């Protein structure tokens, strides 16, 4: 589904942040990406959700070579990957409902066609009562759940989350993890970057361990 082969990444003329990174995400898999701060987790995720292109190596997504993609082909591919950003990246002037509906609006769907979907997903993350709230009035955990709802509302086959439990209390963190696991059971491939070892041990899923730009793999269903 998503395959990295000897991927290297540097910004401009700076040092190489990722070196010879190779792994594969299988359909329906749950994978943790771990490593200390500065190990390159966020950079690797940026490559996965097509915010950056690698300096070297090959990335293939849904059977397409990323290096050979034209700029106009990127949006269609990005729509197949839901992203939960570390800093949420909600649009502050939109309501919770409008933020969650954003991917559907971008896909060109009419409002009446997705209204129920959006409500359902907001209920699923426990924010069915806060449709009209704007991000400024929401707590960190609520924002995170809005961000998750936005990432999955268009039912993408892949979900990527950057430190989703980083800025919230453990109870809320566990609750969010249950959402991810549930999604995974429904068939979504989930990749979660975290520095929380406890999270990984609790779920016993496959782990990609980044250290100084290189990857070690443990557990999971498949070695690449």
């Amino acid at each position, binding site marked *: 589904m998503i395959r990295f082969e000897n991927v290297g990444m540097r910004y401009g003329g700076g040092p190489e942040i990722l070196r010879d990174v190779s792994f594969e995400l299988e359909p329906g898999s749950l994978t943790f990406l771990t490593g200390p701060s500065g190990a390159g987790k966020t950079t690797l995720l940026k490559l996965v959700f097509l915010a950056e292109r690698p300096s070297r190596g090959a990335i293939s997504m849904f059977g397409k070579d990323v290096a050979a993609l034209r700029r106009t082909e990127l949006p269609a591919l990005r729509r197949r990957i839901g992203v939960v950003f570390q800093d949420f*990246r909600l649009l502050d002037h939109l309501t919770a409902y409008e933020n969650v509906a954003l991917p559907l609006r971008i896909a060109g769907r009419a409002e009446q066609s997705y209204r129920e979907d959006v409500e359902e997903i907001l209920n699923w993350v426990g924010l069915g009562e806060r449709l009209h709230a704007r991000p400024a009035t929401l707590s960190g955990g609520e924002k995170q759940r809005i961000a998750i709802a936005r990432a999955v509302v268009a039912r993408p086959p892949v979900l990527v989350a950057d430190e989703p439990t980083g800025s919230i209390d453990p109870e809320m963190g566990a609750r969010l993890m249950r959402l991810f696991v549930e999604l995974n059971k429904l068939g979504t491939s989930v990749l979660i970057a975290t520095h929380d070892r406890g999270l990984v041990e609790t779920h016993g899923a496959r782990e990609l361990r980044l250290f100084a730009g290189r990857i070690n793999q443990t557990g999971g269903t498949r070695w690449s």
Partner: protein
Amino acid sequence: MELTEDISPARPTPLFPRGGGGESALFGVMAIMSFLACLTLGLALGAARLAHAWERGLSGQATVQIVDAPNVAMEAQLAGAIAVLEATPGIATVRPMSAEESAALLKPWLGDADLAAVPVPMLIAVTLDPAVTLDAETLRARLKEAAPGATFDDHSRWNAGLTAASATIAWGAYGVLALIALAAAASVVFAARAALQAHRDVVDVLHLTGAKAGFIAREVQARFFALGGGAGLAGVAGAAIVAVAVALWAGTEMPGLAVDWRDALWFAAVPVVAALIAMATARFTVSRFLARAA
């Protein structure tokens, strides 16, 4: 009552928040540009109408002048010329002017001199039928045959001068309008770029959520369309106040320059054009910006 009823406003919230990118400054600039465009338009239309009025005054009339010709009597020339004129399509009336009328026309030049000794040319006043185009060259040739001393003057020399002058004014005005449009477009370029920079975070989220460049451009251009249209209306409103003032002050003194309410359509086009310029320029700018950013 269903929960879904008022989840979202009737029209979706614009994805780019208001403010940022100097929108109020752009509004002011576009309003001033629209105001200037209206003034230029008013001047051009006024000049065209004035030229047209002068032209119409001259072009309805012509004169045939008959001077002595060897071997042909003056009266014979006059009768021949009148016969030719009356047979020519496009000529409405033919009226030979009396000797007294001709003398009166010469008086400013010759004073009270005795005209009996001077060979005074005979004049025929002709009015033209505006519905028929007169073939002046054929008429001149036929007049020459019937009356060798006759010349036909349809004032076309004066008409040509006036037409050239009004055309020059019109082209000058079009040039000024084009410059105004260009300056307006340039300011939209700056404002659109500034807006994108100010809302870079929104652009990023839209991109990463799979928005195509066209989708983002549509969001931005809709905003600038409204802004350009609003500014255009403000400019036209300002120009309308000036027009009313001019009409009140000069309406009786300079009828040609007074505002003609039939021109309202032209002025109504100004906000539309302003909105279209803003929209098209914003779309172009956003597309360029995104092509470089991606």
